[in-house]
Structures are given as C-alpha cells and as structure tokens.
C-alpha cells in the first residue's frame, strides 16, 4: 500500500514536470513589450507593421520603432518576432494606429479589425486610432519630445473624461461590434504627431460597418458623447462674450413611432459654471446663447448624418422595443433619414 502511494506520487510529480511546458516561460525582462502597433501598406501592396517598443536601459531614448513587412499582418508580425533579440510579447499592446489609406478601404479595414479581434495575443481592449500621417512618423515622434515616457502615447487616450472630454477612446471590440450593428455606428479618433506634445487630436472618423462616412471636429464629437449618455463634465465652451465650463450633464430620450415615421424627443440638461464674462453680460444671455449654439450644432450634425445614412448617435438603440428585429436591420436606410428629433437644451447655472 505504501509503495503504491509512492508510485502514485512519482507519476503525478513527473506528469507535472514533463507536461507543464514550463521551459517556454520567459521572465518579463526577457520579453520585449511593444505598446503601440501601427498598421499600414507599402506601395507594393504588402502590409507594413510598426511596433513602438519601450527601451528600458537607455535614459536618453524612451522607445524604439521596429518595422516588418509581409503579405499578411500575421506574417509581418512573425518576421519581427524572428528578427527580434528577445521574445516579443504582444499582450501589452494598448493602441493600434491604422494608416488612413488602409482605413478608407472598407474591405481592408474590416479584415484588420477581424484579425485583431481574432488574435489571441493582441488584447481586444486595446484602443484604435486612425492617422493621416505616416504611421512610422507618428510612433517615432515620441523620441524627440521632452518629459515623456514610453507609455505616453497610450496615456494620451487615458486622461479621463473630466480632463479631456473630447477624446474618444474606442477599443477594438467596440469597432468589431459596430461591424455587425444595424443601429449604432462608431467614431474612431484621428491623431497626428504634434510639435511639442506627442500627439494632437484632430477629431474622429465616423465608421459605418467598417466604412468611413464622415469626419467630425473635436467639438462635434463632444456632443455625440453627451447624446450617448456619457458625461460632458469638464468641457470648456467659449461663447465670444463669456467662457463657461460644463459641470454636469444628463440626457433623456423618448422614442415614438407614428405611421412608421420615427420621432424622438430629447431633453438635454446641462449645468454650467461661468468662468469669465464681459461686462454687462447677464446669466440669461449666456444660457440662451449656449442653448442656441448646442442646438444649432446638433441639427447640423444630424443633417449630415441623415444624408449619409449613418447613425452615430445610436438613436436606433432607442427604437428596439418599437421596431421588430428584422425591420430594425434597415434602420439606417429606411427609418433614420426620416427621423424627427425634438431636441431641447436646458441650461442651468450652478
């Protein structure tokens, strides 16, 4: 009996040692940890993959940029892995920058998103961004800036809504979801390298099923955030004769359907702080002016969106209980262009 137990123990012990695969384990300092992945295409039609890798040993240079080309993204990544000094661990990639000429091709962009989502190593929570510049230039621009860390490019998107409410961070899985959504489209931020700071936020590209439909300015993006019921806190607005800061906002949407014509009444409540004002400007004037600007901006965007059949606000979500699932698939083309929105803004002083 005792011998038998010893035998069992040896079997279990050897199984654990021989089958665990622990010889492939690499310590964190033996791995190369790229933070940003850039995807573009060469003139020859090959994919070009750029990685921004933090340099830990050197004090003067924060990161290096490595590129590889291949017929597919996987083969390009594989080539980098082959040529790298250390094992490359893609699990810490936090930002994926796609060159505009790739992004504007619906088929290519859809494939990229599907690849990123399907890849086991690249985390699906990493953020996506589009750039009009050369991807390599954007990623290497971090090296000649002062006082930046290797993770600065990622930190740029992670400031938090209170600090920079315009910046829209869109993870890969949300882009992937929007490929299949019939009621909601998505905005992907647009960046370029800055002169003094690492990045400059230029606005957002609006994607409908992987196709870029429109480009919005930062202040327009802001409004979309509000309508998607994300808080607008911290936003500073200049009215010419006064500057205000939004301290709180809330929105209430009420959908209704008359003779297959959708209509939506929306109440936006905004609380503001007046930061500065010219002499003789009353609170009432500020409030009225702000209400007018926001309404004007909203209807301007809505008109553009309805023309391009793109529902960036996600209004279709509100109609899920009123319109059947099969008909909702045609939301963008049949219902959305006829959508009447009764948009009311109410501004309060704090």
């Amino acid at each position, binding site marked *: 009996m005792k011998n038998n137990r010893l035998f069992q123990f040896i079997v279990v012990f050897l199984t654990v040692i021989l089958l665990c695969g622990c010889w492939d384990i690499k310590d964190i*300092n033996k791995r190369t940890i790229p933070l940003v992945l850039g995807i573009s295409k060469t003139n020859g039609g090959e994919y070009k993959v750029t990685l921004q890798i933090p340099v830990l040993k050197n004090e003067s240079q924060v990161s290096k940029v490595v590129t590889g080309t291949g017929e597919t993204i996987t083969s390009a990544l594989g080539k980098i892995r082959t040529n790298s000094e250390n094992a490359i661990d893609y699990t810490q990639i936090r930002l994926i920058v796609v060159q505009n000429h790739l992004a504007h091709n619906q088929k290519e962009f859809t494939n990229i998103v599907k690849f990123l989502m399907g890849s086991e190593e690249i985390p699906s929570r990493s953020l996506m961004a589009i750039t009009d510049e050369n991807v390599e230039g954007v990623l290497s621009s971090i090296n000649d800036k002062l006082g930046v860390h290797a993770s600065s490019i990622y930190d740029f998107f992670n400031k938090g809504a209170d600090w920079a409410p315009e910046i829209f961070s869109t993870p890969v899985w949300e882009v992937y979801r929007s490929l299949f959504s019939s009621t909601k489209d998505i905005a992907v931020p647009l960046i370029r390298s800055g002169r003094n700071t690492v990045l400059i936020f230029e606005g957002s590209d609006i994607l409908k099923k992987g196709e870029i439909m429109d480009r919005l300015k930062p202040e327009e993006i802001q409004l979309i955030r509000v309508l998607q019921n994300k808080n607008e806190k911290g936003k500073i607005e200049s009215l010419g004769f006064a500057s205000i800061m939004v301290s709180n906002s809330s929105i209430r949407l009420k959908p209704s359907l008359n003779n297959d014509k959708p209509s939506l009444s929306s109440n936006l409540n905004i609380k503001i702080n007046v930061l500065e004002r010219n002499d003789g400007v009353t609170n009432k004037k500020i409030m009225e002016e702000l209400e007018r600007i926001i309404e004007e901006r909203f209807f301007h965007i809505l008109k553009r969106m309805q023309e391009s059949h793109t529902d960036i606000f996600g209004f279709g979500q509100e109609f899920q209980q009123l319109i059947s699932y099969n008909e909702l698939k045609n939301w963008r083309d049949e219902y959305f262009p006829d959508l009447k929105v009764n948009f009311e803004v109410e501004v309060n002083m704090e």
Partner: protein
Amino acid sequence: MRNKIVKELETTFSNQGDFFIEEELVDKTTIFLMGFKTLVDLPKSKLYIQQIEDSSRSAKALFMNLSNRINVNTEQLIEGILEGNLVIVSLDGKQNAVVNPFIQNLRSSVSEPKNESPIQSSTDAFGDDINTNVGMIRKRLTTTSLCHCSYQVGELEKRKLSMLYIEGRTPNALIEKVEQQLKGIKNDIETIDELNLQFGKRRFSPVSHLFATELPISAIHALKRNKIVLFLDNCPFALVFPNLLWDMLFSINDRNFPFILSFMLRFFRVIGLVATLILPALYVALVSVNPEVFKLDLALFVAKSREGIPLTAFLETIAMVVLVDLILEAIVRLPKSVGPAITMVGGIILGQAMVEAKLVSNLLVIVITAVVIASSSVIGMQNSLYIRLLKYPILILASLFGILGVCTGFIFTIIYLASLTSDDIPYMTFRIKKEGEIK
C-alpha cells in the same frame, strides 16, 4: 547493623552518587534517613524531624506524626525516594515512613512568557512544575465543574500528565476518546510531538493536534470554549486539544480592546496568513508566466527593475525565501548576544549587497520582507512555521502554471487543511459544541 530493607535500598541505589543513608538517634533507637541529596534539603529536614520528635512520645508516634504513608513495602519506598521524598526506616526495619521533606528548590518562580508577548494583559506564564500550572488555572477558574484527571505515562520514566476540562461543557464523547488515547500511551513522552502522535496519525502533517500556549488566560479561554487542556510535567506550556485554524487568528487578548480594534487586529492576521502563502508565488507567476496581467506602467516598472538579473524569477525567489528562513532559524539558535549581529549582517546582505550586485531585483526584496513580516503576525510560533512551509508548494505550482497555479495551490492548501480532523473535530471548525447542545 543495617537491616534487610536498608540494605536492599542501598543496593538499588548503589550507582547513585547523591544517594545518602544517615543514621539518627531518636528516643534511644536508631533510625535511618534515606533520599537524594540533590532533591532533599537534609539539614532542614533533620531539624524538622527533631522538632516532631520532641512532641512525640515514642518512635512509633514519631512515624505516625511525620507522614501518613507509613509501613509501606519496599517498592513504594523506592518510588518515594525517586519522587524526591525522604524515607525513614527504623533500626529493626519493621517501621518505615515516606516523609515529604524540605526540598531543594529547583524550580524558577512564575515568570513572564518567553514565546508570546501579550499586550494589556496578565503577564504570568506557565512554569515547569505541573502542580503550579494546574494551580494557576484553578486560581483563575474557581468552579467545581473544572475537572482534573492525572495520569502517569511512559515506560522508562513515569511522566505526569494532567487533563483539565469543564464538566458539562466539553463533550463527553471527546473526553472519553482523549482519556482512552492517554491511557493507551505505551512509550515515553519526551516532546510535545510525541504526545501529538498519540491523537492519531499525522506524521507527515505540519499541523499539530495540540496548540501550545504559555498564557493561563488563553488556556482558560480554551476550557471555556469546550476544549481540553493538557499539562505535561516539566513542560511550561498548556497544550490545548484540539488545535483549530482560528486559534492562529483569534486570541482572547485581542478582546481587551474594543471590538472594532480587535476586528482590525484579526483582519491583519488574516491578511498576513494569505500574504505569506501567496505573495512569493504571485511574484513568480506575474513576473515570469503571466506578465500580461500587469497594468502597463507596472509591467514596464517591473521589467526595468529586473533588467540584467541573471537568475530566473523562480530561482531568485526560492533562493531568497530559503535564505530568509535560514536567517530566522539562525536567530533562534544563536545566543542573545550574537543574534542582533546576524540580523544586521543578514539585513545588509539581503537588502543592499544582493540588489547592488544585481543578483535579485529590488522588488523581490520588498516582497520577501513583506512575507517575513506577514508570517510573524499569526499567533503561535508553530503556526507561523507551518504556514512558512505551506508557501513552498504554492510557489512551485506558480512557477509552472502562473496565476492558475497560484489559485489551484491555494485551493488545494485549503482543501488539505479542511480535511484534517482531530478526534472527529474538523480543523476548520469555528467552535466546538457544548455537551448536549444539538445545534
């Protein structure tokens, strides 16, 4: 002119240098005084006998007055001498007595605890003498339902063993089982572990059936919580049976503080327990197997702190953990005057030299320090030792399977502890049911 009994005793103790036979003239007859010089204070005892003699009319009356163990057989006389008594035999050998003499003082008085340091509580600790120890309990627990059973166990030496419990509280079934186990002891009981083995097979288990405490307060609390307290002669500990997991986390001394403070103390002990078990394992798992779990900034920081270190995370951790356990052991072994020196040298070697030589990362030094501090936060030295042992299997699993290994290792440790029982009482029981209590 010595009679048969005296000669027999003399031959029995012929190898003992400290055995004495003194002749004393009492009431015109001679009596023999026998005993061990090392145990009996002879001049004082002689004086005592002379005082009794003055008030006694005859030699027979003297024997009667001196003791109530008179005219016993030779075996009992030998036993009496071994116990440290004075044996008196008359000239003709027909009369004898075992007298309780003035004893040489071999015992230290009640002192402060050496292995525990209670705060805001009585600082009396148990001593070597079993009677003093039981007395200390009796003095603090004045009730008739406190029961005391004495045993003498062992083959070579008869060692005194006392069992205390509160009648009507401790379950009768438990008392009977323990009584049987104590009566069944065949071999000598030299250490606490030898007594521990009598309560069932736990040869390869780090967890003992007995919880040793030096403080009368905790022993009394254990009695009130329906447990059994054992005393072994010449062992300055109360041995509480059964030992439960919560004994390592909850001490009655905590309750000298307001509830919220004692809750805090106990909560910290739980953190200490868990940290000791999984912190080194977590370090290895995160640094070498699953670095993707780290937040980005932390991953870069850890990678930077490990830059240029030749050892793998597992080797580095196991080396440090073993080294620290060696230091802890060395401090115990060393005389008190040298101990601090080793602590200082050890601290400098671990903290400074190893990091500067880039042999281990400074993050690991922080982790190890935290573990050493955490492992000492639980109650009882033996508990601290066994959780230090249990961290090794988890560490090895973590190095193979990462976070998954930490989780399975931790779960298996808990399953193992939950599987332990002492006399059908699970190790993880919160409280033992009172006798007659159904739910």
